[in-house]
């Protein structure tokens, strides 16, 4: 029995929890790491969304859970109107989602040449005959501009530059004609001058094929150019969702504000001022803080409220969700009432 998804949403994630068990000596459980601690969102067709967070925020785990590489311990994934749960669902689902990874060289088997690398997904998903596979390989290499195609087919990954390797990874992600691409830090290991090239390539592919794109990064500066919406993750949860412009111009969550304040633009004046950085470290996912995960470091910490219960999503302006009690209308009223008194 499928629950209904919002109209038009390609991917719908509800209450996703992914826990990893810690075992000592292979079988004694000593605790679990709550890498994803209740994540819900929706992604429309043709929409590009950025998931921003630091290490330990759960963003990579979210990507892998969406890709079906980790099984969620709780929660549901809906894709194109279908639930994705068992093995057969996964098989169908995987051919509709492409994966672009961070390390271009590591993502390619060093002992396979370009042709074989691209042929593998086709072979696994039963695309025959060989002419059809070669046709699709040619087409996809053309799209990522690794031309002349015949030049590249026999090459091995170590014969390609970093940018070319990443194009090949993108080509491989595209070859099954997916509807969704999950890109986990696709450019952070590339040179600055190549990054833009790859991001623009992804954007172009997205427009041409009406692809949905999930772009995971820690580099907020790139987000504005390539995505419509942004989700900010912290401690295994999404703490803010907004359109890009909204987020950058008026960030609401104190963590997002701190994050934005910490990102430098190339400006010589930077050298003269000390940036405000919240004290402390990202939260342990093994023993997370109670209530709001950010409360130990939050400059706007409200005692008695923030550490008690996990804040739900509030919507201070249309399309902008924040999981922070500062935006709880009842609390705001209370504070306004207090200050007026």
């Amino acid at each position, binding site marked *: 029995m499928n629950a209904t998804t919002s109209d038009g949403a390609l991917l719908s994630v509800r209450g996703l929890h992914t826990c990893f068990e810690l075992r000592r000596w292979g079988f004694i459980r000593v605790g679990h790491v709550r890498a994803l601690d209740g994540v819900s969102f929706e992604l429309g067709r043709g929409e590009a969304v950025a998931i921003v967070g630091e*290490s330990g925020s759960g963003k990579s785990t979210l990507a892998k859970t969406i890709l079906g590489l980790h099984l969620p311990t709780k929660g549901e994934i809906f894709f194109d109107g279908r639930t994705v749960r068992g093995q057969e669902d996964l098989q169908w689902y995987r051919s509709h989602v492409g994966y672009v990874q961070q390390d271009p060289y590591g993502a390619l088997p060093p002992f396979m040449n370009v042709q074989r690398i691209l042929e593998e997904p086709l072979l696994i998903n039963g695309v025959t005959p060989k002419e059809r596979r070669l046709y699709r390989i040619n087409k996809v290499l053309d799209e990522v501009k690794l031309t002349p195609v015949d030049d590249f087919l026999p090459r091995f990954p170590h014969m390609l530059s970093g940018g070319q390797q990443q194009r090949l990874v993108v080509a491989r992600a595209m070859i099954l004609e997916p509807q969704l691409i999950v890109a986990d830090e696709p450019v952070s290991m590339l040179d600055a*001058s190549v*990054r*833009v090239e790859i991001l623009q390539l992804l954007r172009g592919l997205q427009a041409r094929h009406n692809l949905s794109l999930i772009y995971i990064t820690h580099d907020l500066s790139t987000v*504005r150019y390539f995505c419509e919406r942004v989700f900010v993750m912290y401690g295994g949860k999404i703490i803010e969702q907004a359109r890009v412009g909204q987020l950058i111009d008026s960030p609401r969550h104190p963590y997002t504000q701190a994050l934005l304040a910490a*990102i430098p*633009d*190339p400006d*010589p004046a930077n050298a003269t001022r000390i940036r405000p950085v919240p004290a402390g470290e990202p939260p342990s996912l093994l023993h997370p803080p109670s209530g709001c995960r950010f409360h130990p470091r939050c400059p706007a910490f409200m005692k008695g409220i923030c550490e008690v219960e996990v804040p739900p999503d509030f919507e201070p302006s249309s399309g902008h969700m924040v999981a922070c009690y500062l935006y709880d209308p009842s609390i705001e009223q209370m504070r306004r009432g207090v200050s007026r008194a």
Partner: protein
Amino acid sequence: MTSNGLLSVENLHLYFRTLKGPVQAVDGVSLTLQRGRTVVVVGESGCGKTSLGRAILRLLPRNVHTYTGKVWLNGLDVMTLSEEQFRKQVRWIRIALVPQAAMNSLNPVLRVGDQVAEPLIIHGRAHTSEEARKSAAEVFRHVGVPIDFLDRYPFELSGGMRQRVALAMALITQPDLIILDEPTSALDVLTQANIMNVLKTIKRELGMSFFLITHDIATSSELADDAAVMYAGQVVETSRAGQFFKEPLHPYSRLLMASVPTLHDDKALGFIPGQPPSLINPPTGCRFADRCPARFHKCSEEPPLFTVDSDRLVKCWLYA
């Protein structure tokens, strides 16, 4: 040329011997740095900036083909010193290094306090373990690591903390100059900002001079007083930071700046098609000519460094 500056690199060459021929990693680099200032060397992977840092500190592998030039440190050409003299007088005493991914190169079996104190003991600056420990505690204070971390092992520390420990190790001998090679590239945004704050504080409180090597132009602006851009083993532009970040001169610098996404500034992003040339057989003439949008006939000849606005140097015929 001795200057009143702290560091002056003159025509430094470092080539490596490989099976395919000599790799011209550092090909005639000249730079100066005044005391108390920070110079940032920016460039992409393979431009030779890491090799430059190692060349200055004479941390060379076995397959060195050519190693020539002058490196003036406070009026003394340290290239003339013997290996032993260099080790005793310069390396880590007057110039220290925080290498790339330093947080991963801490010795996992030593407590961090002991590791940080090691340079002191090696160079005979501290004679008892009490003295060494006191100095370690002091330098921990400068980098913002709590004192009770002295007895911890590296695996007990987070990435940001470990990077600070590596920095402390470089500071402890009170060198004149610290070379930092990609100090923040493996770190999160907030941790990065933290480390930059620490570096700024050290710069202010101790008057430390930094030689910062990075590919991250945005982060480099946090610390830079002077900037130098490297491409294919050569320095193609040097400037004061103020002028550089506002308006770079060399076509490569401009394209590089254009490819840096900015958070608050809405600009069109560009990229540089093609690849940097191989350092084994670099092309004659201007090495960027192949990819340069402003290329013209003179570019087949290698341009010298032209002076612009009295204190900017650009290696480009457009400024002849």
